Every structure is written in structure tokens, then in C-alpha cells.
């Protein structure tokens, strides 16, 4: 009987160790787990039990954050297979992908000079989002069906590019809204 604090996140949630995931199911299990361990359930217990419950709840929160995020889940699965990627890592990608990134960045840089910057940004964000989703489904295929680790690593690194881009889109959106609204 391994302690729940050391079991891997998929086991903890009693989910198959694979990329594809039913979000609603993950959410439901998360709620069930928190119902069991959350410190509020131990408000009248002794100090020791309260501490333990806090540790468990924090662990389950962490696991949930990783599993529900397509990028972090991908990285976690690769880590379980012995391939660690840190979030700053970049890649010697194919030139085509790098070209595309440069173009997207240029588009982002030009947003402020558009007639309706917020609307233009919204369009760009949707475009980025769609490409990110496409990478996600490809990752599910190479990880769950083909088990091509090399291809999976490349895809995760690509997703990291898009993630950074998405963060910048959000920052710009926040700035624009503060200025314009």
C-alpha cells in the first residue's frame, strides 16, 4: 500500500496513465478527493491530523493542476517515461515552425496599429488557440497510440512556444483593455 503522497498523479485519480482525458471525469474525481481530505473536513480534529490533511489536499491540488493542463500533463507523462523537459527549454525546430512563430510574433507586434486592436487581437488569439488544440490532439495520438517518444518531445516543445505566445497575448489584452476601456 503506497502512500497517496508518493503515488503518481494518474494512480491518485484512478485514471489510466495516458494523455487523452475526459475533463468532466477528472473534475468529478478531483471534487471527490478534496471532499475526503480537505482541511475543512478536519476542522475539529487534532493538530496532527489537520497538518496531514493539509498536505494531502495540497498534493491533490497540485496533481489536478498538472493533469488538467494539456501542456503540463504532456510533460508529466514524458517525465514518467524518463524524459524531463523544463519550461524554459527551447528547440532546434524545423525552420518552417520557427518561421511561423516569427510571423505570429510580428502579427502580435502589429496589433496596436490596427483600427480595432482588441478585435484584431481576439482574431489572433483564436488562431493561436486553434493551432494549440491541433498540437494537443497530435500529442494524444503519438503518446497514446503510436508511443513515439521523440515526436512527443517535439510536440511538447512546440506547445511551449505557443504557451508563451498565449501569455503574451493575454498581457497585451490586459494592457489594451486598461488603456481603452
Amino acid at each position, binding site marked *: 500500500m503506497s502512500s497517496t503522497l508518493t503515488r503518481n498523479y494518474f494512480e491518485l485519480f484512478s485514471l489510466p496513465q495516458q494523455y487523452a482525458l475526459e475533463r468532466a471525469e477528472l*473534475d468529478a474525481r478531483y471534487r471527490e478527493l478534496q471532499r475526503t481530505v480537505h482541511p475543512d473536513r478536519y476542522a475539529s480534529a487534532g493538530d496532527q491530523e489537520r497538518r496531514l490533511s493539509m498536505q494531502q489536499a495540497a498534493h491533490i491540488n497540485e496533481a489536478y493542476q498538472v493533469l488538467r493542463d494539456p501542456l503540463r500533463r504532456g510533460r508529466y507523462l514524458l517525465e514518467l517515461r524518463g524524459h524531463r523537459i523544463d519550461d524554459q527549454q527551447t528547440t532546434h525546430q524545423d525552420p518552417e515552425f520557427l518561421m511561423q512563430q516569427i510571423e505570429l510574433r510580428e502579427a502580435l507586434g502589429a496589433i496596436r496599429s490596427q483600427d480595432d486592436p482588441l478585435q484584431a487581437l481576439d482574431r489572433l488569439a483564436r488562431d493561436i488557440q486553434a493551432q494549440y488544440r491541433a498540437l494537443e490532439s497530435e500529442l494524444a495520438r503519438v503518446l497514446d497510440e503510436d508511443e513515439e517518444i521523440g515526436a512527443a518531445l517535439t510536440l511538447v516543445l512546440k506547445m511551449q512556444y505557443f504557451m508563451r505566445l498565449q501569455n503574451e497575448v493575454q498581457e497585451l489584452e490586459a494592457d489594451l483593455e486598461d488603456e481603452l476601456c
Partner: protein
Amino acid sequence: MALLQISEPGESTAPHQHRLAAGIDLGTTNSLVASVRSGVAETLPDREGHHLLPSVVRYLPSGEHQVGEVALQQAAGDPLNTISSVKRFMGRGVEDVKRLGSVLPYEFIAGESGMPLIRTAAGDRSPVQVSADILAELRQRAEQTLGGELAGVVITVPAYFDDAQRQATKDAGKLAGLKVLRLLNEPTAAAVAYGLDRGSDGIIAVYDLGGGTFDVSILRLNQGVFEVMATAGDTALGGDDMDRAIAAWMMEQAGLGSDPDHGLQRRLLMSARAAKEALTDSEQVELTVALDDGGEWRGMLTRQHMDRLIEPLVRKTLGPCRRTLRDAGLDRTDIREVVMVGGSTRVAKVRSMVGEFFAREPLVDIDPDKVVAVGAAIQADILAGNQPEDDMLLLDVIPLSLGIETMGGLTEKIIPRNTTIPVSRAQEFTTYKDGQTAMALHVVQGERELVDACRSLARFELRGMPPMTAGAARIRVTYQVDADGLLSVTAEEQTSGVQAHIEVKPSYGLSDNEIERMLRDSMDHAEDDMKARRLREQQVEAERVLEALQAALQQDADSFLNREERSAIEQAAAELAELRDGDDHRAIKNAIERLESVSAAYVDRRMNANIRKAMAGHAVDEFK
């Protein structure tokens, strides 16, 4: 009720005694106390039937003080000794307080630890003490109404309160002699009151504009689980600011200089507030203010004009609304309901602008003054263990990122804002000098890149590391935030095992010893009272531990314990039971610790079994 948790329905557990619990809304302008009685959560009135207690304390030369309406009545006559809106100063340093606004109607001085003190006729008072006086008043009201001592309370705080402000609030609770079961975010409390009323699932936004603070939270409700997805706000924005905007306009109209004395300031603010509140129901109001020269100024304010004066303030709340949506990854159209909380949401302009923003009519049918206290009372009742069958669960988030100072005055985020609590995150750092044996750590909170633009929470040092070459040390810094949103930090050098730990106490906060000293000072027969109090605390704790343990043993001792383990636990329990009836609080404390240590493995096994049991219905074939 922890250990009772896994009993099957129908299985009998130890008989449970009802514990008196209350929810307290410690507001900037008004405070309330509520409790669940005969299954209904309701706010408790004072003898005259008033539910709202103005958050005002007046200190008298005799050393005594008055709280609430009586104090408020004297505010203009005795401005320097009558403290209102003290919530704005909680967890703040002297410098912050000065920055908060030019119009502070009383005198601040710097206390020894950098905590601002307010000069009053009864002596210098810290914001924590003033808040404790308000809490003590509510405690008394509750204990009189409910007919007994409170076993525990839930105190609400603005969701956007940072660590220092939360810590200060909890300290105030302790100082008022309360057992604080939980600090609960105000919008979450409102959602609890609201959610249970309607019993329906979906995503809601809670817009809470009170006297001095603004919060907006987005929550997902699902079968009794309230999951906060994102929160944002401004801890220095509220109805007070509207009053100030109106008062400034009045001064302009009356041709008064920009530097009125304290008394006139108070009169202007009170008249502005009365006018604002009247304009909720009428189209225009007459204004009168007594001037210092014995004369009087009269004027007229229309709602339309007031709307123009306050429009920028209301607009300021929409930025955080947009941010929560973005952080939650949602569109305005995803929001099913918008709940309005706080007295300032009575202002028509607020309702219309918020309604326009979310493109839906906000809900205003729940009393915006009482809803927070009611939600807190519901949670307090559950936490006290009075509702073992209730499976409501609140999952909240931290409102502001927690970080650490790195080279060059930059912040590195360790826990980003809107992370669900409790949470624990670690990061590794290293030394940058050869032979370095100590490392200074600076804990900050905020979103900005530069440390100076964030709130400094604490500084501490990890000392006694063995000298190593630069970059060889591996210092693991762990941030842990509990369910109250309070942070503690540990640092450990991994290769040598040298450790440092702090509960993050803001530099201008109170140490536990200070709290204890103040508590002692406030009692008539200090020594005896303090002793009796400690003894009672330990007895209650012993009772709790024993009760939970007995229930657990009855249920499943056989599944988790061998004979030896069980008899060791039973022996330690018997020892505790005997000491509990004595009068030595230290001996009881030690016995509790002994019992906890012999039952540690048992507690751990049970919790893990609970988790497996919760997931048991979802067997996964993929791995064995």
C-alpha cells in the same frame, strides 16, 4: 469531525454535542455576527434590534471604550478618539497608511515594530486592537443571544486581502479571545449563502462593493462544491471613496479651503454619505453642513450629478472584472448569474454599469448587507462539526502571486495568483559566492516584476550552511499556504540538511507573545484568568482528540492496527483522559502530543484508505 467522516450512513457514531459557532463579517463600515439556529442561518440583532454594528470604536480618557452606534454618534464631536474604517489599516505599515489618503481624520504615530498606532485618549491603539474591540463586542452579542461560549468562529476577509492583512485579521480574532476556525473570503461566503438558497449548479460572478473594499470572484458551483476560479479586486476602493468624491465637490461648492479641520472633515463626509444613500431612492437631495464659524452651507445634489462624480470609481471596478474573466479563461457569456454584495451595490449607477458589463441583470434580491455573515455562519456551523452529513466544500484561491526576491531586485514567482489553496510549492536556489554560509530570503506578494513594487511580507535568513563553492549549495525554499490563505516558508540546504522556518509574520504584525501579553493586559485578574484560559483550551483540545480517536477506533481499529499498536494507543489515550480532568495545562498538552505521536501511523493509514475508498468505484484496468 474528521475521524467520524468515513462512517457509513446509518452506522452510529459517538453522540455529538452541539457546539456554538458563529460567522462574523468584519466590515469597513459595518460588522455583523450570524449563527445557525434551528437549521436557519441568520444575523443576530443587538438589544435594540439592530443587526448592523457600525465598525466604529471611541476611546475615552477613562481608558474605556464604546463600540458601534454610540461611538458613531460622537464621531464628529470627538473625531480624534473615534476610530472608523480601521479595516483599511489592517496589516499595513505607517508608510502605507500615509499613502492611503490625505484625509485621515485621526493621528497616526509609528509603533516600535513599524506598526501604525492611533493616538487616542485611552492610549495608543493598533488597528489590530481596534478590530479586536469590534470583534469582542460581536462575540458578547452572540454569546448572550446563544446562551453560551462560542466554540469557534469564521471571520470573513476581502478576497483580495494579502497575507499581511489576513494575518492581522486572524490576530485580531485571537486578541478578542475567539477561536478562529477559518478566515473566509467575503465573496465566497456570499456565494455560500446564495448557492444554498438556490441549490443550482453553474458559474457565477460575485461583485462585492462595500464601504472600503472591492472584490470580484468567479465561482463554479457543483453539487455543494464551491470552487473559486479566479478573484480580483482593490482593497482600497468602496463607498468611502464615493463619500470623499462627493465631499470634495461640496467643499468646492462651499468655497472651503482644501484643508478643513478634523471635525469639519467628519461632518462633510457624513453629510456626503447621507446624501449618497438618500439618492438611492430620490432624484435629488438637499445638503447642509455646519461650518466652523457657526454658519451653515446649503446646497443641492441630483442623482445625475452624483453619478458623474462617482462614475470614475465605478469604472475602476470593471478592470478587475475583466481580469477575473481572463484568469478564469471565460467569456462574459459564460457567467450564469451575477450576485451583488455590499451596501454600495445599492447605488443605481453601480447596478447599471455592472449589469451592462456582464450583459445581464445582476441579482440584488438578497440583502447585500447580511449575505456575507450568513454564509460565514453556515460554514462555521459545519466546521464546528454540527452538520456531519453536510458535504459542502469551499475551494478558494490566493488572490495575489507569492514570490521571492532574486538578484537585481527582481521577483521570481513561486505560487501564481489564483492557485487553489491549500498549496505547497518548492523552488531551488543556490549560492553565488564561494564559501557563503548564509542566505537572505525576502518573501514578497504581488504581480509586478520589481520587488519594490510588490508587498514585502517577510525577510529571514538561512544560516549555518557549510562553506561550499559558489553554485554548489542546493537551497530548497518551500512556500506553503493553508486553507486560510496564510503563508509559511521553509528553507533547507539539501546537501547539509540545515533548515530555517518561519510563519510569515509581517514586520508590522504582532508576535504570538505580544498577542498573549495584550490578552493578559485586557483581563482584570490577569494571571489567574490566563491560567484558567490556557487550561480550558487544552481541555477542549484533549476532548476533541479523544472523541475523534474513540470514534475511529470503534470503526476500524482492527483493519489498521495490530494488537500492540492498539494497546499503545489506548494506553496513551487513557493517560490523556486522566490528565484532562486535572488542572495542569502543560501536562495535558504533553499528553496530547504523546497520543498524537503514537497514533501517527494509524491516522496516516486511515487517511490513505479514505482516499482509496473515494476512488474505489473507478477501478482502472490499465495498471495493477
